[in-house]
Each structure stands twice: as C-alpha cells, then as structure tokens.
C-alpha cells in the first residue's frame, strides 16, 4: 500500500463507489433479465437475449464504472483485502432484493447475512487501525 492518494483518489472511497455500482447493477440486471426472460429458448442460456432490455444496458454502464474503479483499487490495495471487503455487496444485494424486488428473506438467510457482516468486520478492523496510524 505505497503512497496512496487522498481525496477523490482515495482507494477506499473508490472501493465504496465500486461496491455501490455493483449493487445497483445486480438489481438492474435481475429486473432486466426477468423482463426479457425466455427460459424455454436454449440460446437464452448465453444471456445474450438480455441485451434486449434497456435496464441491462444501464447495468452494463454501471458495471464498466465499477470495473474502472476496481482496477484503480487493485493498484493500491492487496487483492486478499480488497476482494473480501467488496463482498459487502453480498449483504446489500439480498437486502436490495427484499426491499426493491419483493423477494423473501428467510430466518436462515438473515443468519447468513449476519455471518457475512461478521466476517467483513474481521477483515476491515485491522485496516481501520492501520489507517489511524498513517
């Protein structure tokens, strides 16, 4: 983690932006894919028919944005730290599915979400300390 830029170039901020883009893109993809779903059509296994949905194109824009910020993050943060942290989307996505897509979350699923949060806290805490020292 050599001489990291601050302000907008701060890799932790960029990581957060990347995560938000991924989160929004996942919900858009699900909506878009459902819109044009053709499960009886073999070609749809390739996902290519998803391109018929404008929501999928919005999702692609967000994915590209998240990809660029992610490459930037990779320049400064080890993959074994950045990647587990980026999985905060594994908490955000089910919550988003529940709130925006009306999917149900069972008790067991809530427990799983809690475990993810606990794991994230473990990964994130030493980093917070490290940042304090700088």
């Amino acid at each position, binding site marked *: 983690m050599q001489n990291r830029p601050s302000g907008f170039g701060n890799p932790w901020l960029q990581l957060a932006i990347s995560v938000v883009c991924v989160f929004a893109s996942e919900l858009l993809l699900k909506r878009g894919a459902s819109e044009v779903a053709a499960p009886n059509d073999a070609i749809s296994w390739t*996902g290519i028919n998803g391109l018929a949905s404008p929501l999928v194109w919005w999702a692609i824009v967000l994915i590209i944005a998240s990809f660029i910020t992610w490459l930037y993050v990779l320049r400064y943060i080890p993959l074994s730290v950045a990647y*587990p942290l980026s*999985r905060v989307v594994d908490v955000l996505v089910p919550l988003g599915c529940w709130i925006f897509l009306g999917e149900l979350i069972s008790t067991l*699923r809530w427990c799983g979400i809690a475990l993810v949060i606990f794991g994230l806290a473990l990964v994130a805490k030493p980093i917070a300390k490290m940042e304090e020292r700088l």
Partner: protein
Amino acid sequence: MTFLAFVFILISLVTFVAAQLILKKAMEFSTAQGMRNSYFVSRVVVGVVLMTVSFFLTLGLLQRFDLSYLYPFQGLSVIFITILAAVVLKEKLSMRLTIGALLITAGVVLVSMS
C-alpha cells in the same frame, strides 16, 4: 436442467476468479512499468474477456433463478480469491483475514441454502 445450471454457475465462477487474479497482476505491474506495454494490455484484455464470459453466463442464469438464490454462488469466490491471492500473488494472509474470508463465505453459502 439442474446439472446444466450447475455447470454454468461453475464456469461463471472460475472465469470470474481467474479474471480477478490476472487483473491484479496487471495493475501491480502497471505501478512499476506503466500501462503502455504489451504485457499490461494483454493481461487486461484477457481479464476483460473472462469477466465478459462470466457476465453473460450470469445473465442467462438470472433468467431462470432468483437473484438472491444465484448471487451467493459468487460469494464462494471470496475464499477462492483470498487463497489464490496468497498462493499465486504471494500476498500475506493473516489468521484474521483468513477467518474473515471464511465467515463471509459461510454466510453467503447459508444465504444460498435458505
């Protein structure tokens, strides 16, 4: 169709994990050597191609399953990427980081089972 679904989930996972490792290598290389060289460009291109494959397979799967069911399989990538980052990229893995990654994976698997 379930076996086919499993195969597609697996391929989308493997391509995604490989892409992350390749991209990290490329970005690390770029800090020292810059971006105008064939080593960097070829790695980024391969990474992007792999991520694109993973993307379209996911899009196909999304037409068949709930997002909250499918998404967690990508969560398995946490433990794979963390381990491979240590093995392939020689990143230092603390006990804490390993346990954190395992908990995230366990949580994500639990979400997918429920």
